[in-house]
């Protein structure tokens, strides 16, 4: 476990209560547990595909804490397990998606991790990178248009996705109209096998903000409290009419891109190990213990809870039925499907 030097120092908590800090930590533990479960089920041949967010836990749990349920909207991407959990999706819902069961929000139509929940304010998205970013901008436009102060959209993507034209067009439009939106880039330094230096001419994505005339800010995404502070400030600005912000959270992708990838073909064990030293999960555990937000025993209990929750959700979801052949034909248009239509 990485040493932290926080002991003794007053905890800079950005207004987060003990309960909130514990909720963030629970989210982080649950993310990691569910992540592992996906890879495990894949190895067991129970699911053909899984994606992990290891390394993004602090970033996502911290950012989710700034999200206001029932008000804000989240337009996430496929690595946002922790954001989905943090805004209210259950482990069971996550596993329904992983198992592609009929009760999944998408009815088992989409890849795992392509969450969608209208009631939670989580906007449906496809696998086409960056395609969801204009949708988030459109939703933010709707909020502003209807005069809904106090609402904002949080839209996320990976570092690699900022190269897409639609990313640029979206940030530009949001800037013109000072829309209530936060563009949060989860910079894990890799896009599958492509390192940041082959993705862009200079590696600080937040610096693009000035070109659009909006605030830009980079933060340590291994620190959930710093993350919360940055995202909360940006969302607050958005909610109160201050317009968009471009945020860049620094993190790292500890696992391969997905169960289909072998990252050792393009990066070294040593590189991964170096980042592992900063692993946000044990790091935050130490912070909470050091500052008496949780005891070591609390932490152990929480870990058991989270494991039990994961197990129960797995069993429950696995027992659910698949969609049937007939389900291929529903929800194409409003009304019943007809051939040749």
């Amino acid at each position, binding site marked *: 476990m990485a040493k932290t030097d926080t002991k003794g120092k007053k905890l800079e908590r950005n207004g987060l209560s003990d309960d909130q800090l514990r909720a963030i930590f629970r989210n982080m533990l649950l993310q990691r547990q569910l992540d592992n479960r996906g890879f495990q089920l894949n190895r067991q041949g129970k699911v053909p595909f899984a994606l992990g967010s290891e390394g993004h836990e602090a970033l996502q749990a911290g950012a989710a804490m700034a999200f206001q349920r029932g008000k804000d909207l989240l337009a996430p991407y496929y690595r946002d397990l922790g954001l989905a959990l943090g805004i209210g999706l259950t482990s069971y819902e996550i596993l329904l998606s992983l198992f592609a069961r009929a009760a999944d929000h998408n009815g088992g139509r989409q890849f795992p991790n392509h969450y969608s929940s209208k009631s939670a304010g989580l906007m*449906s998205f496809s696998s086409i990178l960056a*395609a969801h970013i204009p949708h988030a901008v*459109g939703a933010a436009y*709707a909020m502003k248009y209807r005069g809904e102060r106090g609402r904002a959209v949080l839209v996320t993507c990976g570092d690699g996705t900022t190269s897409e034209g639609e990313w640029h067009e979206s940030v530009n439009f949001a800037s013109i109209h000072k829309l209530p939106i936060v563009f949060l880039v989860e910079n894990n330094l890799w896009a599958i096998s492509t390192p940041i230096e082959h993705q862009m001419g200079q590696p600080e994505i937040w610096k693009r903000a000035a070109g659009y005339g909006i605030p830009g800010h980079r933060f340590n995404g291994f620190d959930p409290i710093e993350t919360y502070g940055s995202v909360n400030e940006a969302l607050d600005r958005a909610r109160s009419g201050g317009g968009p912000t471009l945020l860049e959270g620094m993190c790292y992708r500890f696992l391969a891109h997905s169960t289909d990838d072998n990252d050792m073909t393009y990066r070294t064990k040593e590189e991964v190990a170096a980042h592992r030293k900063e692993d946000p999960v044990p790091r935050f555990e130490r912070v909470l213990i050091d500052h008496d937000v949780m005891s070591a025993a609390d932490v152990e209990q929480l870990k058991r809870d989270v494991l039990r929750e994961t197990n129960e959700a797995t069993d429950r979801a696995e027992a659910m039925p698949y969609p049937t052949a007939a389900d291929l034909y529903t929800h194409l248009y409003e009304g019943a499907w007809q051939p040749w*239509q």
Partner: protein
Amino acid sequence: MAVSSPTQTSQIMNNVDAVRATLYDAMKNDPRTVILGEDVGARGNVFLITKDFAKEFGPQRVIDTPIAEASIVGIAVGMAMEGLRPIAEIQFADFIYPAFNQIVGEAAKTRYRSNGEYTCPLVIRTPYGGGVRGALSHSVSIEALFYHVPGLKILAPAFPADVKGLLNAAIDDPDPVLFLEHKKTYRLIKGEVPDGHYTIPIGKANVLKEGSALSVVSYGLYVHWALEAAQQLEQEGISVEVIDLRSIRPMDKTTILQSVEKTRKLLVVHEDNKFGGIGAEISAMVAEEALFSLDAPIRRHCAPDVPAMGYAEPLEHEYMSSPAKIAEAMRELARF
């Protein structure tokens, strides 16, 4: 064609006025309606379709966007997902290519991929077609690039009354609709348009002229020329049935099949290239469902398979058909 009943009042207008009047009503009637696109605001669209809209409804409802088609559609998708009723404009159909991802990958699949949780009630309007010296990039037909896509509806009305009725239907529709306006017909084609709000059901073709010797299916500018050619042939003693497709997807199988079963000959006429064009599906459908009703091969009278019409007049002239060329294709098939 929707015709006004005696008790109904109506106006004579051209296609551009019909688009304008319908959009105006939509803006008046539903505050969720917003219009977005390049130069739709201050200038009121390059054809002046939304002239003065921004003044009346405000720039937040008539949005002059940056030049960025992918996001024009993509932002409209997001608006639609979040409860607005956006009408996005692509300034010329030729500029829709950068928005392909948002139309095909996103708008068309929003409802399906979310298993009905999210919907995308969105209209994308765009002027298409040639005969206006628009050269390679201001005159293409785009319907065949999209009509293969489940989840989209595609309309291409030719008459002012249909423009209004179908645009209203598109705006009311809970799913994405690509609404194609043939720019050559904008001011050329005039007709009676009933007052008040009405819709024409999406997916219904219209038999413009009954006939017995031959069925002609067309849409857009060429349906007018086909009608003109059919009237010419009537005088020569050849009775041609002319069907205005109006809706490209969904397509009106029933009307086409009924007609072909009666006339036993089918000619599809369109401005777009032949290979893989709309005529391909019409023809294939008939060859699958009514083959033994046919007394002649199914003919397609379409543009030659070159990218588009050139700017120089002789190039445009060669690319485009004409009432005379269509009449000749009709005669040939009638003689078969």
